[in-house]
Each structure stands twice: as C-alpha cells, then as structure tokens.
C-alpha cells in the first residue's frame, strides 16, 4: 500500500531534482551561457536576497491584493449570474451569447480599452482578472444547476419539497462540486489576468517585476519572479483541487 502511493511522489521529486541538476550542470560545464537561462544556485540566492530586502514581499502583496479583489468579484458575481441563469431559462438564453463570447474570445486584447476606461495600473489589472475568471465561474455554476439529477428533484418533490426547499436543499448542494470546479479553473484565469495586466502597465507586482527584469536582460531576477508565480499557481490550484475532492465525496457513481 505504502510503496504504491509513494512511487509517483518519489518519481515526481526525482524529476524536479533532475531538472535542477541538469540546469545547474549545463551552465557550470559552459554548454549554455548563464545570460540566457541563469542557474538554480544564482536564482535561489536572488530569491533569498529579494525576500530579505522586502522586494519580494511588496510585489507579492500587490499581486495578491489585485488577485483577491478581481477574483473575489468574479466569485460573487459569477455564482450569482450562473445561479440566476440556472434557475430561470429566459435569463440563461439572454446571458448565453455574452458568456459564450467572453469565454472564448481572447479578452486580454481588450486591455487597451480598459486602460482608457480605468487608467494605467491597479484598477485595470483588477478588471482584467475579473473579466477573465468571471465567465468560467458563471458557466460552471450554470452547468452545475442545469445538471442536477432529475431523480433527486423528483424524489424531493414527492416528499413534499417546496420550490424554496428545492433551491436550498437540492439544487445548491448538488451543484457545489461544479461550482468549485469553476472556482478552480477561474483561479488560473484570474492569475493570468493579474500577471498580464502587470506585464503591460504597472509599477509593482510579480508580472511587473518579470517584465522589468526582462527589459534589463537580468535573467536571474526574471526567473526568480517567474518561480514565485509558478509556485503561486500550483498552490492555488492544488488547494482548490483538495477542496473539490472533499465536496465531491458524497456523490456516488451511477
């Protein structure tokens, strides 16, 4: 049992170790110029320095705040819009073309319009994070409401459930897994909005720092910020995946 579960973990750790070792060695052996790919030891040193000087904390705080506001807004409004559309057919039909457009259009292209509306900086980044994650959350919530098993509704009805009971006791709990799946997918998109928004125009944040150091051709600092972004993405996604697994555990295969 133990060895069964440990094997993927061990291989996964091994793969990161191999990547780090290979990366460090090709630079040490002089096969690739560190100007292009830096090297793990230098990146680690830079990360440590940035953490001590407070630069890392500042950038992280700015990005996290933008993320929290943009993503928080789309969680509230996305679940609300999705639930309304899931409850009332007419709302669904009216929202459908817009959700479909927002979902599949490359929304980041609207960035210059946002700059015109909100000005350069934090509000535009928040708008981008909101707009990218909102359609995902709304669509998943709608799907969750749509796909409540008719058997559950029939059973509740035949035990005398009212419309209100149906919403609170059947539709809402049954759609929770889909909603959480939407929240998980929305995180990646909101993070994308924050990073790209900062990449284009801002004065602080992780996206700003990768763009800033890229402009200065300081690869080591660039990669250090990139690694913080990767870690953030992995942590958020893993956290929501764990939550998803918990909320889905009551469901039985049919």
């Amino acid at each position: 049992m133990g060895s069964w579960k440990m094997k993927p973990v061990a291989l996964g750790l091994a793969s990161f170790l191999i990547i780090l070792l290979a990366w460090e060695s090709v630079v040490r052996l002089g096969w690739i110029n560190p100007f292009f790919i830096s090297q793990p030891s230098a990146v680690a040193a830079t990360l440590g320095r940035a953490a001590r000087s407070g630069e890392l904390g500042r950038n992280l705080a700015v990005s996290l705040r933008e993320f929290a506001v943009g993503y928080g807004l789309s969680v509230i409004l996305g679940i609300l819009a999705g639930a309304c559309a899931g409850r009332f057919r007419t709302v669904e039909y009216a929202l459908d073309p817009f959700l479909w457009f927002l979902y599949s259009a490359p929304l980041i292209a609207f960035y210059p319009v946002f700059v015109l509306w909100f000005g350069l900086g934090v509000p535009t980044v928040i708008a981008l994070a909101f707009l990218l994650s909102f359609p995902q959350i709304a669509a998943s919530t709608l799907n969750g409401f749509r796909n409540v098993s008719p058997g559950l509704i029939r059973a509740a009805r035949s035990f005398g459930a009212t419309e209100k009971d149906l919403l609170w006791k059947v539709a809402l709990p049954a759609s929770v897994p889909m909603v959480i799946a939407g929240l998980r997918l929305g995180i990646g998109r909101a993070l994308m909005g924050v990073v790209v928004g900062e990449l284009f125009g801002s004065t602080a944040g992780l996206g700003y720092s990768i763009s800033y150091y890229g402009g200065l051709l300081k690869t080591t600092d660039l990669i250090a910020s990139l690694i913080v972004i990767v870690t953030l993405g992995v942590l958020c996604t893993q956290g929501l995946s764990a939550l998803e697994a918990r909320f889905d555990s009551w469901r039985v295969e049919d």
Partner: protein
Amino acid sequence: MRLTYRTLISTLAVAAFLAVWELAPRIGAVDATFTSRPSRVLAAGLDIVATGGFLNDVSVSLAEFAIGFGLAIVIGVPLGLLLGRFPVLRHLLDPPIMAIYSTPHLALLPIIVVWLGIGMQSKIAVAFVGGVIPILVNAAAGVRGIERSWIVAARSFCANRWDVFVKVILPGSLPGVILGVRLGLSRAVLGVVVGEMYQSQAGLGNKVMRYGSEFRTDYLLFYVLLISLFSLAATTAVRTLEEKLWAAGK
C-alpha cells in the same frame, strides 16, 4: 419550439446590447471616445480593410499561430500518447507539466523575448507553449481512459504492440486529443495576440496596442472583434468535429 424561444431571447439580448451601445453615446450618456459605437467600429473596419497593410498584419499573425499551434499538435500528441502509455514516464514528467499548466503561460513572455527577440519566433514559441500543454495532458488522459479490456482483447487475438497502438490506442484516445486541441487553440491564439501586444513589429496584436495608445477606440475595437471572431470560429470548428466524432463513436 424551445429552440426557437431560445434563439429569440438570445437574439433580442444581443440586439438590445448593440442598440444601447449605439444610442448611449448618441444621446450623450457616455463619451464615444471611450466606448465608440457599432456603426463607427464598422466604418473603421471598412477603412482598415481598404487601406494597405491589413493583409500583411493578418498574414503575420496567422503564420505565427499556424506554425506555433501546428508544432504544438505535432509534438504534443505523440508525447501525450507516450505519457499515457508508460506510467513511469508519466510520474516522472507529471509534476513539471502540472506546474507549467497551473502557471499563466503568458508569464513566460519576457524570458521568451530575451531568448528569441521581438520577431515572429517569440510569438511562435508562446503559441506553442500555450497550445502544447493542454494537448499533451488531454492526449495522455485519453490513453488512460481506454478500457483495459480492449487492449487485453486485442492482445488475446494475437495483436502485437504496433497493432494495439494503431488499432486500439490511437482511435481510443482521439476524444481526449481533440479536447486538448480545442483547449490549446484558444491559449495559442491568446499567446500570439498578447505576444504581439507585448513586443512586436507587426501583426493584429501590434495594431491593437498601437490604436489603444492613440485613443482610436473604433479602430482598436475592430481589431479586437476580428481576433475574437477568429478564435470563436476556430473553436466552433473543432467543437463540431468533436461532436461528429462522438456521434460516430456511438
């Protein structure tokens, strides 16, 4: 009957949106400098298409997309099938792949520009990175979703490894592969456009950024809508293919 009601409501909603967008600036409720108007976007579009240089931008962007996404399919599908087939390989490569998958791939733009410059190569690379990961992950998932009994059955009828691969694994993983292609497609389009918006000399994203900085909202919106339309059309095409495939599979 229900379908017609649906179409009616959807059409009405879009028409209402366009009407508000057209009329609000006209009656002075909002400033058209910021929102433009559908009629002005249309006029800008005609102007853009009529003047030279438009086709050049379109072909630059299309070429970047086609090469980057083509490479993503050519490399992503076989690699995904291998990962799905060999668990050791999968356990080894899964963590780095998942780490890249949960990271916004556009965050790689600055370093890709350092490596490849501001020409077409960097956009091709971003489109590739955006496209290849979903294709790879879903192709691998497609292989893992194949009923083991099919493989066992093929084996017991004396199929060799190659037969199993061509006759069971390849068709069986097709739904996963197509799903990956559809998910990768919009990420690749995004990669090209945002790559051009970030640093470039030509292409649709380049024009988006230029007209944005010149406050020419109608021109800007025409380009944005054109890109969106392309993305929608391409995604819809793959989705139709997907549904046909599902129907044929049943």
